């Protein structure tokens, strides 16, 4: 057996052993999952003794195996406290853990994608750059990983110290999967460290594929961990698997698979990715601005671009995932949906709309600035002013409110239920039109950027260009036309217009990107991309993007949590603490700002620590870092 073959066999065996070890805790835990399955047998034997309850969500009957949700009393037993509002402390601990957790779950997905691109690309120089970039990504997340674990510990202690009765109840419900969660965290850590420290040893040939497979395993574990964490908040918002008194009925799958679990999972995966992209882009921007050499500037410019592109790729479908989540909230409890979108928390959605606008405007601004480092892109720059106009119009329509909860004084001042002018315009189809125009314009900016320094050489280039132009024009006409049509039809019919509007935007996204890629294959370059020659303003746009996204995450998390109002677990366990009320918008905004700034100050510190380690590294280690050498055209 040759040396290479033996190496392959050992690698496969090592990978199988690792997968086996990772699955071991899950398999060992399976009996506990079967509580529900065993229960019917036990029920037959002791039918007279067992008590049955009806699942509040699934409406199925089950044998009561848990205690009722505690009826808490405001006092040191159920709500011990420091000389401060306990809810604010928990808010802080939770939010910081979530920020770091999202970051360390998102970055390995980037690594996987970028490493894969490095493995499959035929250009060796580019492959090396991708590999180095993936390594840089995971290096950034490694320090943050330990901090995430520390923050997780702080969060649990905060729960135990300030909300013992509530935490005790949730733990009793989730007991069958809590140890799986802990063991999976161990598996995640082990995989991450092997993945990181094995990078150099497994950088060639078949071993590289093994290394890449490990990143897949790492991400599967990470995603499952997140799903388990999401099941807690899903249960708090839309409980299932318990009866009206909150007694566990033995089926842990029902507890996990609540009405809002899947929409939350999808929303969080996309959100984490967009957030992770933002953080890495901000890191690259910081390094770019602090760079002393053209070589460094070129590298971090490229890194910032890739991170931004990955982040935005997940930001674009995020509003649609949010739409699904809201739809499921309405389907679960209409009052909950109305409290969110048209009641107590409605003003927060106005802030959210503002922020979505900021995110897309920053992205577009960055792309326009990035065209400046591309020779040949000048031909598109004169049209940017029209894109600004379209974006501004879309944005203004998007943030126009329709109905709002008002005090009698405000109602009197306004002269009616709706604003005399704006009230006529802020209907849902128009707002959907606004955001879809913004997203379609962002797609257009991307398309221009991708073809900035190229001229298509395919024989049907002229026809392709005309087709793309007509497609975009039709997309705008369709979106805006449906937005206007919405004013002439009843509200319940109007809601349905969002489907063709979204379909139009997604069609633009997929068809135009695909067509553009085909047209630009083997295209003639009109000039190189001069990495590192981008304006400093563009880097501030990346930082703006990252900060705004962090703020939006804080805002949406607050909205999601607040909608339970005075319930710890909706309709099951009541919050009887002195803080069972909802803060004002202003207080929430200040608190979110505090959390955002704390996160950024701490992560800038982490970046700084990382840069200290880099300074200590031997000089030869950075040899693989790409410089300002001419970049291949396909690198964007």
């Amino acid at each position, binding site marked *: 057996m040759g040396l290479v073959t033996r190496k392959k066999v050992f690698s496969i065996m090592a990978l199988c052993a690792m997968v086996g070890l990772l699955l071991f805790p899950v398999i060992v835990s399976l009996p506990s999952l079967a509580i529900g399955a065993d229960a019917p047998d036990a029920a037959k034997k002791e039918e007279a003794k067992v008590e049955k309850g009806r699942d509040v969500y699934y409406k199925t009957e089950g044998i009561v195996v848990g205690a009722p949700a505690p009826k808490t009393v405001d006092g040191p037993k159920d709500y011990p406290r420091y*000389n401060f509002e306990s809810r604010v402390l928990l808010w802080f601990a939770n939010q910081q853990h979530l920020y770091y957790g999202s970051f360390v779950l998102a970055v390995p997905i980037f690594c996987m994608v970028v490493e894969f691109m490095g493995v499959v690309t035929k250009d060796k120089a580019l492959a090396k750059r991708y590999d180095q970039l993936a390594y840089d990504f995971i290096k950034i997340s490694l320090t943050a990983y330990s901090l995430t674990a520390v923050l997780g510990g702080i969060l649990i202690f905060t729960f135990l110290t300030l909300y013992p009765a509530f935490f005790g109840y949730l733990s009793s419900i989730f007991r069958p999967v809590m140890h799986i969660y802990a063991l999976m965290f161990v598996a995640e850590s082990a995989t991450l460290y092997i993945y990181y420290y094995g990078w150099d040893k497994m950088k060639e040939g078949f071993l590289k594929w093994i290394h890449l497979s490990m990143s897949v395993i790492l991400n599967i574990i990470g995603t499952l961990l997140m799903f388990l964490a999401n099941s807690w908040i899903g249960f708090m918002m839309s409980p299932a698997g318990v009866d009206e008194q909150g007694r566990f009925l033995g089926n842990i799958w029902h507890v996990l698979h609540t009405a809002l679990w899947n929409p939350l999972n999808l929303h969080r995966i996309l959100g984490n990715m967009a957030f992770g992209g933002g953080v890495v882009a901000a890191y690259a921007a910081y390094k770019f601005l602090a760079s002393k050499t053209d070589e460094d500037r070129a590298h971090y410019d490229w890194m910032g671009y890739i991170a931004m592109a990955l982040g935005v790729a997940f930001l674009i479908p995020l509003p649609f995932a949010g739409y699904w989540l809201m739809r499921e909230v309405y389907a679960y409890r209409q009052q909950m949906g109305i409290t969110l979108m048209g009641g107590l928390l409605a003003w927060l959605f106005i802030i959210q709309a*503002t922020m979505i606008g900021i995110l897309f405007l920053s992205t577009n601004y960055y792309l326009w600035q990035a065209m400046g480092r591309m020779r040949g892109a000048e031909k598109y720059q004169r049209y940017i002013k029209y894109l600004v106009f379209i974006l501004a119009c879309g944005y203004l329509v998007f943030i126009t409110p329709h109905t709002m909860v008002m005090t009698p004084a405000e109602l009197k001042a306004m002269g009616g239920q709706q604003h005399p002018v704006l009230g006529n315009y802020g209907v849902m189809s128009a707002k959907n039109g606004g955001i879809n125009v913004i997203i379609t314009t962002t797609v257009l900016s991307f398309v221009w950027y991708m073809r900035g320094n190229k001229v298509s050489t395919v024989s049907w280039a002229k026809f392709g260009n005309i087709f793309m132009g007509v497609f975009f024009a039709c997309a705008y006409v369709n979106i805006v036309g449906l937005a206007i049509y919405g004013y002439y039809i009843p509200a319940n019919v109007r809601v349905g217009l969002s489907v063709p509007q979204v379909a139009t935007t997604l069609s633009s996204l997929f068809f135009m990107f695909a067509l553009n890629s085909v047209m630009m294959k083997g295209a003639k370059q009109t000039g190189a991309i001069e990495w590192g020659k981008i304006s400093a303003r563009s880097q501030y746009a990346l930082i703006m993007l990252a900060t705004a996204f962090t703020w939006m995450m804080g805002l949406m998390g607050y909205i999601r949590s607040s909608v339970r109002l005075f319930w710890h677990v909706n309709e099951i366990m009541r919050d009887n603490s002195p803080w069972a*009320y909802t803060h*004002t918008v202003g207080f929430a*905004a200040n608190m979110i700002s505090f959390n955002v700034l704390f996160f950024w100050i701490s992560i800038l510190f982490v970046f700084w620590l990382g840069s200290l380690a880099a300074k200590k590294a031997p000089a030869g280690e950075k040899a693989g870092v790409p410089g300002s050498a001419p970049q291949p055209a396909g690198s964007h």
Partner: protein
Amino acid sequence: MGDLINQALEMGWPAFALLAGLLVYFQVSISDPVAKKRATLRTIIGMGATLLLFIAIVNYKENFYGENRLLPVSLVMVTAASFMVAVYFPNLGALLKIGGLMFFVAAFLSGYGNWLPQVEGGFPPKEEKLEYSGMTAQQLADEGEKIIFGGVGKNKEQGAIGKGQCPLCHAFHAGMLGERAPNLQGLPERAGKERLEDPKYSKGKPAGRDYAQKEAFPGSGTAENAIEYIAESHSCPNCYVVAGYGVKGTNDKESPMPAIHKPPISLSIDELVAVDTWLFVREGRDAPSFEEISKAYEKFIPEADRPKKQEEKSGPPSALMADGTEPVDQILAKAQCVSCHTIPGIPGANGTIGPKLVEGTNAPNRIKDKDYKGTAKSTSDYIMESIVSPSTYVVKPFPDNTMPKVFGQKLSAGALKKIVDYLSQVYEGKEPPKIS
């Protein structure tokens, strides 16, 4: 502003002293006039930035709970300080400018949040002990209006909402928005005719219904008149769904409305009677009697599912800490006031978490304080306000939101009066009043 600067100097004096020392050191140690000028300028800029930073911290600390809208000012100050320092310290320039931009974005968004109308979600509705069965129709209707809209006469206010949460989805007047659920104007008339005669309702033949539920519970049957129809729609919304108002995708077979006698709304039958009475009375109709409506609900809500009447309910929301029959020292002990406050004359009241309660002396001064924003005009009013709404005026330097805001709900009127009477007679340096 003067206060803020003073406090900033008080808090940051070691930093200022260090910078002053550096200034002196540069004057003495640097001989090159250009370098000396540069070092002096940088130190002065550093002092300015430090002052801004400490003013920002003090402002944040002082107004964290009180004047929220002033907090973004702190963030703007930090932004200004960051950019000032970044200009003169190029080595840290990138980091400081990035930090400055982040503070600016946060300041803008915080400021925006504070500029918007400030709505605070209140505590869960207070539960009162009421004897509905002895009320007149008008009294019942008033209670019903409170349950629906949160107060008598509020039915035309947009956004008015009571514990029943009905206006979240239903409109109650002609021409008002009712996109999520039917407009209830004219319901008593419509219920007995249109609804019951609708073939889909399948009056008297529940098996013929094509909805998510055929009956409220096995054997309950269908409604026979308008009163029963309203009772059935409250207790079994899935038994009949008005066309166009079902859950999306169910072809109007399932209603988005929850059963009103179950969580999260959990109205008792008595409360539901009050709501239904209002629906009749507000249209100038003769309301059915309490017994008639109760009987209709009993038809559709099985014994086991009936929410307990308020006096039977147990648990914290309605549990009183003291009912007012106890002597004042016991009331203060039961409400745990003694843990946080020092109260002359009350055994064991040595707490220091909150201010000492010598309200006979303090209350008149507090009312005159320029920071006082409450409505009290007398000592008694001030004490009552401090108990039921502790954040109205917070005695410095104690933090806000430490004192629970639930005493208005957890102490009876008698108990509150006893506390107010006692505390208003406690003066600094004088013998405390007798305990009664």
